[in-house]
């Protein structure tokens, strides 16, 4: 009861007692009443008491309330009251509000109370499962208190409740459905529930992500108006952070789901200078942090780089840079934006290049880098902002040789803008390095060190930098100036801690000199440096100087370890002797060890971001801690090593080199052999190729042989046929199937021509006889007629001559024909002979086929033979052509003959006409003779009958003429 009194504060014991009895009664009613209404009223009464008498109600009623949840599911009202009551018992939220002014002691007790009741509730795992199933109830009065109850259970004993939900089937999936609830209160409380559910539980985070949480939360954020969206957006962003932070699987899913693209509109912040509400700032801050979760340097490198690429591709980086250069952005948003940009560009060349190209919208435009550096070395800017700028600069240079080169080049004499109209990054860094503000010194030194990180070229380039200190004095190198400030640091009055400046400069020098023997030589060249360092280390100074001593030891160690012995007075050995004499090896190593033992060292080594609570903590740089880790061991070894060991090492090195030489020699041999192998392989492949080609050629040739064989067989058969033809028709044998046809045709033509000839000859004979007849008939007429007929006879003679020539031509043609026939005969004989000469060794060939060479030989022989055959065929066809030509010529002569014959016929018709004329004349004369005879009769003169006979003969001739013409027509047809 003491405990209870503590909780209830000023309550007196009396009424408490009665309330406890009331609660007892109510519990009895809930347990025993058979009427639902009764039970409902009792639970409602318990609910109203539960806030005030949390302990009593909790202890006495919980069991009954759980029973109600199990049995009275049909009545949403009683379930709602029961859940509300349980919530009041378990939750600490309201208690805190109510008892705001109460002592801390009581709050802690009430927290205890909540967790104790939670423990009781979840002892029975089924209770949580029951609660999960109740959340499926759509009724607002059930679902809402259910959500709140489960949320507070998770807040009280997160891990245990998470485990129960995880193993209950569909538990997480069911809770995800809350985000789809149309009632905003439930949806928003659902987000809070999921926040508690996903807190540091990877498995649940993944399931929630699997259930499309990203999509839904991003939708809610968009619907609510992004950063303008109030506390709901904030809750969603916190849940998103829960899901993504340190969860690579979910980050990968987020990236693969193209959700990065959906973040871009978040940063499309209007350029209004006013209107940055506290909520908006909070939301934007969370949004920026969410971006950083995805590209955190602690994520796996592959995951971060793919997110960085996506952020550039979708324009998110560009959007962030716009905020960076915008005016009126609250300082903490600006700082976080710089940090975000830093991590989006870190180690990603494309993004770094883009960042280098960003210009501030000033007149004239200045590079963003310059504008940011101006803030870094400006002591009036907030500390966190300056840290952020340094981080941004570091990220810009991280693994960015190009960027490092650009920054260093702004310091080199050749590129410095003589007019001085625009400030360069290098000028700003130098200004910071030698300003009177120790924070600027430190930042500039670290920034410059990052421009040299793992970049031997820039380390050497930076040695060329000369500074004009004051008019009249010779210029001093940057390296010299740094050491000068180190050694005379105490003379200048600075703002801030002196240690910060010296630590900054020493870190710069250590980075500069490591892995760069030329820089070491430059450093040692100044004879004041080594005595200064040994003096610093040897002195027995206070605790705060220990760090500087450690760094001086590191610098001296670097000067030994990376010494190439090019300076006679500061060779490795001599420096080591110096340490032994002036400091002592043990002492030196102890001082060196101060660095990594420093409390701020481990802090800085954890994360790349320079994140310090206040300027005093700004001592170590992350990259520098890496360098210390790398060098501490090797320097310790180098110092402890005696000169003999050194020599031994040299020898070992030499032998190693020898080994190396041998190895390289063998490598070369192997390389050569490799080459040879390659060549041989190529040869093999070409040979293979050739082999294949040859084989294909062989197969081709085999097939050709087969073809040729087939041809031979064919020819043989044809020859056989042709021979038969010869026997029957004494025609010429030819090599292929076409020629016999042609020959047949030619023979036919010859036949025709012969018949034509015969016909012509018969016609000629007829004509001859006709002409003979005509002649004889013409000899009889008068002297007039005779002259005419003489002409005629001349013509006839000519015709005759022509005829004889025709005949002779015919004879010659027939002679030629016989000649052709004989030639054909000869050809046939030749082919026959040839056919006989062609060998047909089929059996032997099957044997030979095995040996390609043999086959090839044979093939060539066969080819030759076929060639010969072809030639012969050619000769034959030529001869055939000749014959054809001759035939053509004879044909043409025949045609000429026909023409001539036609002419003759025309002549004949002419002569016939003349004959007719003559006949007419004869008839006239006959008549005259007749009339004269009649006159003679009249005169009494006797007349001979001869004349009358003559006229009858004349008629006969006419008849013959007619026949002739008929005949002629016939012939012409």
């Amino acid at each position, binding site marked *: 009861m003491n405990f209870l009194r503590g909780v209830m504060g000023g309550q007196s014991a009396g009424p408490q007692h009665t309330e406890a009895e009331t609660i007892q009664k109510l519990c009895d009613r809930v347990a025993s009443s058979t009427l639902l209404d009764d039970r409902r009223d009792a639970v409602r009464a318990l609910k109203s008491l539960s806030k005030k008498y949390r302990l009593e109600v909790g202890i006495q009623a919980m069991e009954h309330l759980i029973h109600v949840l199990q049995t009275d599911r049909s009545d949403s009202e009683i379930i709602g009251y029961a859940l509300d009551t349980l919530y009041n018992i378990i939750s600490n939220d309201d208690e805190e509000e109510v008892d705001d002014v109460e002592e801390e002691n009581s709050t802690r007790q009430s927290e205890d109370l909540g967790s104790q009741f939670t423990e009781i509730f979840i002892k029975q795992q089924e209770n949580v499962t029951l609660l999960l199933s109740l959340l499926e109830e759509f009724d607002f009065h059930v679902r809402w208190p259910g959500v709140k109850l489960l949320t507070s259970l998770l807040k009280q004993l997160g891990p245990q409740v998470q485990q129960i939900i*995880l*193993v*209950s*089937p*569909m*538990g*997480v*999936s069911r809770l995800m459905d809350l985000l789809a609830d149309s009632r905003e209160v439930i949806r928003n409380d659902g987000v809070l529930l999921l926040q508690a559910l996903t807190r540091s539980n*990877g*498995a649940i985070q*993944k*399931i929630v992500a*699997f*259930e*499309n949480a990203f*999509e839904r939360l991003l939708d809610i954020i968009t619907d609510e108006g992004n950063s303008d969206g109030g506390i709901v957006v904030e809750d969603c962003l916190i849940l998103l952070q829960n899901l993504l932070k340190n969860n690579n*699987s*979910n980050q*990968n*899913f987020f990236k*693969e*789901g*193209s959700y990065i693209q959906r973040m871009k509109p978040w940063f499309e912040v209007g350029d209004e200078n006013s209107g940055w509400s506290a909520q908006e700032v909070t939301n934007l801050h969370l949004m920026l942090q969410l971006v950083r979760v995805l590209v955190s340097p602690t994520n796996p490198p592959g995951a971060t780089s793919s997110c960085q690429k996506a952020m550039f591709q979708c324009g998110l980086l560009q959007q962030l840079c716009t905020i960076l250069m915008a005016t009126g952005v609250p300082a903490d948003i600006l700082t976080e934006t710089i940090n975000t940009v830093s991590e989006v560009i870190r180690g990603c060349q494309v993004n770094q290049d883009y960042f280098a190209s960003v210009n501030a919208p000033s007149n004239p435009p200045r590079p963003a880098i310059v504008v940011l550096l101006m803030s870094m070395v400006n002591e009036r800017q907030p500390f966190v902002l300056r840290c952020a700028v340094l981080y941004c600069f570091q990220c810009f240079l991280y693994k960015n040789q190009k960027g490092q080169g650009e920054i260093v080049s702004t310091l080199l004499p050749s590129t410095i803008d003589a007019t001085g109209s625009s400030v360069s990054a290098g000028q700003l860094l130098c200004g910071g390095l030698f300003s009177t503000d120790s924070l600027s010194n430190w930042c500039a030194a670290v920034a410059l060190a990052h421009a040299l990180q793992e970049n031997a070229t820039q380390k050497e380039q930076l040695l060329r930098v000369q500074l004009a200190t004051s008019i009249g004095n010779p210029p001093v190198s940057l390296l010299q100036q740094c050491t000068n400030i180190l050694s005379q640091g105490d003379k200048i009055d600075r703002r801030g801690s002196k240690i910060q400046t010296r630590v900054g400069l020493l870190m710069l020098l250590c980075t500069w000199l490591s892995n760069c023997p030329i820089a070491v030589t430059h450093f040692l060249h100044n004879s004041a440096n080594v005595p200064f360092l040994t003096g610093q280390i040897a002195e027995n100074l206070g605790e705060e100087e220990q760090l500087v001593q450690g760094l001086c030891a590191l610098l001296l160690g670097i000067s030994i370890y990376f010494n190439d012995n090019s300076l006679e007075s500061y060779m490795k050995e001599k420096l080591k002797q110096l340490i032994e004499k002036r400091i002592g090896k043990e002492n030196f190593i102890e001082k060196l060890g101060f660095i990594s033992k420093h409390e701020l060292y481990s802090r800085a080594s954890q994360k790349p971001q320079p994140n310090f609570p206040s300027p005093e903590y700004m001592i170590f740089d992350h990259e520098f801690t890496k360098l210390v880790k790398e060098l501490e061991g090797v320097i310790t070894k180098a110092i402890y090593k005696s000169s003999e060991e050194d020599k031994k090492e040299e020898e070992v090195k030499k032998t190693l080199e020898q080994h190396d030489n041998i190895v390289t020699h063998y490598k070369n041999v192997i390389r050569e052999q490799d080459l040879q192998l390659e060549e041989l392989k190529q040869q093999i492949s070409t040979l293979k190729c050739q082999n294949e080609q040859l084989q294909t050629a062989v197969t081709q040739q085999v097939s050709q042989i087969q073809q040729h064989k087939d041809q031979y067989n064919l020819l043989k058969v044809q020859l056989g046929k042709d021979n038969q033809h010869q026997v029957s028709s004494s025609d010429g044998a030819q090599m292929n199937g076409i020629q016999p046809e042609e020959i047949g045709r030619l023979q036919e033509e010859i036949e025709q021509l012969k018949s034509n000839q015969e016909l012509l000859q018969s016609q000629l004979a007829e004509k001859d006889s006709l002409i003979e007849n005509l002649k004889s008939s013409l000899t009889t007429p008068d002297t007039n007629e005779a002259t005419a007929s003489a002409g005629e006879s001349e013509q006839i003679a000519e015709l005759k001559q022509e005829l004889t020539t025709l005949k002779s031509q015919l004879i010659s043609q027939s002679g030629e024909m016989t000649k052709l026939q004989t030639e054909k005969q000869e050809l046939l004989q030749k082919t026959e002979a040839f056919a006989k000469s062609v060998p047909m060794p089929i059996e032997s060939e099957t044997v030979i086929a095995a040996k390609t060479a043999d086959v090839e030989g044979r093939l060539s022989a066969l080819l030759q033979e076929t060639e010969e055959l072809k030639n012969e065929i050619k000769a034959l066809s030529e001869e055939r052509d000749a014959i054809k030509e001759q035939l053509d010529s004879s044909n043409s002569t025949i045609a000429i003959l026909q023409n001539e014959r036609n002419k003759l016929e025309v002549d004949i018709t002419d002569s016939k006409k003349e004959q007719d004329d003559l006949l007419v004349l004869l008839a006239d004369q006959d008549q005259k003779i007749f009339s004269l005879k009649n006159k003679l009769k009249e005169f009494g003169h006797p007349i001979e009958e001869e004349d009358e006979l003559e006229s009858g003969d004349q008629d006969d001739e006419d008849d013959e003429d007619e026949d002739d013409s008929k005949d002629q027509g016939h012939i012409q047809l």
Partner: protein
Amino acid sequence: MTYAYLFKYIIIGDTGVGKSCLLLQFTDKRFQPVHDLTIGVEFGARMVNIDGKQIKLQIWDTAGQESFRSITRSYYRGAAGALLVYDITRRETFNHLTSWLEDARQHSSSNMVIMLIGNKSDLESRRDVKREEGEAFAREHGLIFMETSAKTACNVEEAFINTAKEIYRKIQQGLFDVHNEANGIKIGPQQCISTSVGSIASQRNSGDVESNSGCC
């Protein structure tokens, strides 16, 4: 990066059967010979092309160990496809298929496409489960079946793509409600417009079918 559809897969089966290796081979085209026990669930994704359509596969590779069984059950409901994997060199992994299948059927949507996979087909000499047995089991339970080798990449691509083809076919048949994301299917961002105009989409689909049949 745009896609027509997004399908969610899960890979299930006894521990050590090569689920993670199948995923690694499919997404990264490499093989990890050392067995690295999956804790809970790991995520992987890849784009594939089916019928000329870009389809994004989001794959959740589950832990095979019994202790993670309750966690992996949460993934069935939202998946459109499941690769149920056994090891052809270990009969017990084949014998446990029934219990895996019961789990899957109980917690998944009824349309989930299940592909049965006999993995480690490269270890023919140590084979303990005949190919025919796998085929018979698949036939009996209405699953698609394939034997794969995550080591040689044999059939790995096909296993994932054939499952996607089957899901795609079911979508075209209207068996899946593509607008309900609980089915593990999502329409790509640029696709929303065309599907809202149903007639055009269906015309286009039918056109696609025709052109496909034409080319085959």
